[in-house]
């Protein structure tokens, strides 16, 4: 694949109560954002375990966005706090085994924050485009 035409695969784990509604609002408001993100709706950002994140990387995600409710707004009270600690812990791990920690991002996106969702996806896609394909994909494609 030509490096210039690199279209990243980004997985967006969005929580059912805030971020997915935020993404919906961005859609309803016809806000433009890159189509590289594949949104996966989960009930809570706390559901996004190490397993989901690492597996997404292993099977070809170039970047992973975990989006949840702002602290204090979680439908399940503290699920998003678990996600926060988990992502904080995974970043040094990813870096140590050769995956740039910038490929994993956590954002708080409320149901009313459609524009923030669009902006987040835009800037994250830009970051991943600059970083290029994930090392797993690079190895798979024989680079």
């Amino acid at each position: 694949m030509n490096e210039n035409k690199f279209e990243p695969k980004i997985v967006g784990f969005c929580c059912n109560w805030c971020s997915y509604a935020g993404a919906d609002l961005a859609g309803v408001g016809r806000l433009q954002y890159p189509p590289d993100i594949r949104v996966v709706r989960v009930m809570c950002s706390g559901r996004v375990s190490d397993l989901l994140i690492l597996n997404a990387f292993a099977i070809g995600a170039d970047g992973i966005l975990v989006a949840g409710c702002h602290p204090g707004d979680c439908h399940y009270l503290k699920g998003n706090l678990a996600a926060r600690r988990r992502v904080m812990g995974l970043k040094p791990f990813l870096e140590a085994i050769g995956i740039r920690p910038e490929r994993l991002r956590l954002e708080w996106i409320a149901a009313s924050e459609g524009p923030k969702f669009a902006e987040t996806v835009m800037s994250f896609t830009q970051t991943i485009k600059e970083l290029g394909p994930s090392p797993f994909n690079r190895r798979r494609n024989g680079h």
Partner: protein
Amino acid sequence: MKGDMYLAWSSDSEILNRSENGGIVTSLLKFVLDTKRVDAVLAVKARGDDRYDGGPVLITDPSELIETAGSLHCSSPNIARFLKEYLGGAFDMKLAVVGKPCDIRGTIELVKREQVNLDNLFLIGLNCSGTLSPVVAKRTIIEEFGVDPLNIIHEDIEDGNLIIMLKDGTEKTKDLKALEEKGYGRRENCRRCEIKIPTMADIACGKWGTSNKKATFVEICSDKGAELFEEAIKAGYIAVEHADDKAIKERKEKEQEAIESALKWEKTDFAPLKNMAIEEKFDYWWGQFSQCIKCYGCRDACPICYCKDCILEADRGVVMPGEVPPNAMFPMIRIAHVMDSCLNCGQCQDACPAGIPLTRLIFMLNKELYGIFKYQPGVDVASRPPLRSITDEELTIPGVELVF
């Protein structure tokens, strides 16, 4: 009282003769068994007469305790895992457990995970300046000391030297650092271990501070330990004198010296891993992981791994049956699940038949996570593993990162 320090020795001359220092550990074990304070004792004993094959033993008969007296530096049994796996986590028996700092810390981590019942345990910690793997120990003795390993009756690590004593009574000494630079000496994790005195146990026993007298330096680390120790004195099993400032200072200095050497080794071990470019790191680690033969040895040896139904098993759909080397999920999940509580006990690396430097990676990550979460595993029963716990205060912190 908690925090008290003593120089102590056994009142039993047989124990005193056979033991490493003052025989306090064996005497305390004898005391708790004799008085039925515990149902059994978990200690370490050489199999047959082989100093290089020490394994955990469960002792219920006080007369057998004498066989566990004396230290074995050339084996590193997995006490915490043994306790959880084969003794039911002490939920249905009272036990006295003897262990190195990493064994005690492993036990405490398992207590946090509700796999071990601390109420039923007396933890007797031993000062530890490191262990040698049996194979490397034998190689060191043959190639560096020029002695038959079966001719050794005692070995010790003291003031940065490895000391061996032969059957005929001669002592041989070599500089440990020089040995280790040549690839001999202690296990890799031991040489960078900073926790030499197990103050997280009920009683910490060791040699430092005794000025080579035939005595054990004892620090009382909990109220449970204090009670036990006082009872043992009253019953006449041990004799004590209060440690004077000189002894305490000597112990502190030796500990400090050992910690400094550990920190140096830590730098030496981690620098190449940290200084690689990120692409090199990926190639290096995936090159290592591609040697994995999926024996599950690391998982089965790890004192922190405790899931009854492990996600890495073939029927869980993450790691495919029959696939060797396993897919990327195997090493990643293994590491991600234990990295916040890694004790640097070295069991995974010892177990790995492919020689993957697992402890080096996991403990390096643990140190980085310490920088973020300030969590030191296995030291305090009340503090929770940082990636598996949350606090109410965090509800009011708005950002996507926490600062501790």
